[in-house]
């Protein structure tokens, strides 16, 4: 069983998945951020690969990516950072990012290197399931990586079933029709969508992301799915200039509002 599958088997609800951009705020913060998130009680970490043209992201994640690229972030460096931090933590790590840098690195070389440094899964938002099945499924499976696909309020039931069947990590439920960080608060319409998906009894675990930014929105999302994903709100917290450790602990505390579990 992969680290991701072990997590969902061990903890079927209230999963807190936090996204951050690798190389942000400072180039060598990647490992520090991962360890701080792990210490603070986060269950799963999405490591964002910075990209010049992130189509599905709002200003917060765009700017953090620009900053990371300016800092000198590259995929080879990211892999070194991950390999290093992997010696200190067993938390499931998922790489999230756009497909162009993956192609430039070499697709299979990328998948193999991910597995080698201890990445557990991938989220590639601009790699649709058609292209995945026809060109990349075999290579990703061969490398032993999990993959998670997105669904949105507009995704048809038939396509949700296909996406569920192809996802080996989790189904990433985009909470509304918007780019990341677009709004906060959860509407009745969104609740209806969460309920509709819940009633489909998918095989994969579901995590809700986009617009989750507070204890309240996190709790609401957790009522309808196995957990939730926070990105922009954490990036904003990291961007305020506090030390990474402090900013991370405060932020996760605000979201969970429960004592940090002690090992």
């Amino acid at each position, binding site marked *: 069983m992969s680290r991701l599958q072990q997590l969902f088997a061990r903890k079927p609800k209230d999963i807190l998945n936090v996204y951050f951009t690798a190389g942000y705020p400072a180039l060598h913060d990647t490992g520090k951020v991962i360890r701080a998130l792990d210490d603070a009680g986060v269950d799963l970490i999405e490591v964002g690969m910075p990209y010049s043209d992130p189509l*599905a992201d709002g200003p917060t994640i765009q700017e953090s990516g620009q900053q990371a690229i300016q800092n000198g972030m590259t995929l080879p460096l990211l892999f070194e950072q991950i390999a290093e931090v992997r010696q200190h933590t067993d938390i499931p790590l998922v790489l999230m990012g756009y497909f162009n840098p993956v192609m430039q690195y070499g697709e299979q070389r990328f998948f193999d290197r991910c597995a080698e440094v201890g990445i557990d899964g991938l989220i590639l938002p601009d790699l649709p399931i058609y292209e995945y099945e026809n060109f990349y499924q075999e290579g990703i499976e061969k490398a032993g990586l999990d993959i998670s696909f997105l669904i949105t309020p507009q995704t048809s039931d038939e396509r949700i079933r296909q*996406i569920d069947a192809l996802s080996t990590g989790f189904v990433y439920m985009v909470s509304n*029709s918007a780019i990341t960080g677009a709004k906060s608060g959860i509407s009745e319409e969104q609740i209806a969508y969460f309920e509709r998906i819940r009633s489909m009894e998918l095989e994969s675990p579901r995590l809700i992301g986009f617009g989750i930014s507070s204890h309240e929105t996190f709790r609401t999302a957790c009522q309808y799915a196995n957990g939730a994903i926070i990105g922009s709100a954490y990036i904003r917290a990291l961007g305020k200039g506090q030390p990474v450790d402090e900013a991370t602990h405060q932020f996760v505390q605000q979201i969970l509002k429960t004592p940090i579990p002690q090992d």
Partner: protein
Amino acid sequence: MIAVDERGYYGEFGGAYIPEMLYPNIEELRQRYLEIMQEETFQKEFHRLLRDYVGRPSPLYLAERLSEHYNTNIYLKREDLNHTGAHKINNTIGQILLAKRLGKKRIIAETGAGQHGVATATVCALMGMPCVVYMGAVDIKRQAPNVSRMRMLGAEVRPAESGSRTLKDATNEAIRDWINNPVDTHYIIGSAVGPHPYPDMVARFQSVISEEMQWQLEEHTGSAKPNAVIACVGGGSNAAGAYFHYLNEPDVRLIAVEAAGKGVHSGESAATSILGTKGIIHGSRTLLMQTKDGQIVEPYSLSAGLDYPGIGPMHAHLIASGRAEAISITDEDALKAAYFLSKKEGIIPALETSHAFAALDVMEYNSSDVIVICLSGRGDKDLETFINHFDDYQNGAL
């Protein structure tokens, strides 16, 4: 056979590499664009507007003095005479009719120099639809007259403040708008780029160019086929239209002219077929200019319509397979060609189009050849640039 497959691939290029949020819109287009475009009522309305509003057919003009100079037979396809001054309107008329049939209520577009923005704002005024045009904040400053035109036509021009704040970022912002407004909005892409079915849809709307060329050439020369078709390529919409009906006529040479900027290897260039590598830009697998880490870089050309970091997937395929010949032309040579055409034929071409004319100086041909150049736009918008360099040209300093 050169044609797009049902998933949008031309050989290995094309496809639809889009976030899931865009899937319903793109899938609806993919399933319906051909059927809608083939409807008799659609065709009637499209061709009526092309005739009565755009002013088509655009003339095919035998440029005698230019032909004499180059010792061959050069015909100019006069897209510069269209309403709004370029070929761009062929596509915006087609797409707005399609948008209406899809029940869309709001139009968005991206623009670089502003030509596609003006063509989109124009058809939105014509149809009474609200229009938002995304334009890089840098380009808004550089292209003030076109910004005023769009506003006068009733469009809202929104500055793209992300990334390098030029065309690629305006395109990103338009895509983000579409993600945020998936139900009521249609995105009119201006070039033969983007996720399938856009490259094919834009090529089909622009294919009226080569459709007319066929019968016009037949009248002029007795044959519908020229020896060569020359067009400038940024994203590649005028080239796609000029090549379309000749794609599977291997004895018709297709010449794609890119912007070399200050020189292909000067670090300031937009010669994508030489400098580009395989990757994904704006949802399409194609050739694009990027760093070794896969970050998209900002290209350079004096002409704002050619400084796109990618190239349409059809053109990537045509060039990679050897069907089309790519030629790159510097800013200087394009300027010289513009001044030369102006004096020889009394036609001031757009700076983009001027690159196509400069190709005559570097390509090989026979004196008996029939060569068609797609004169994609007029040079009014570039007057300031032409004025700035005119003294140098006259002094022989260019």
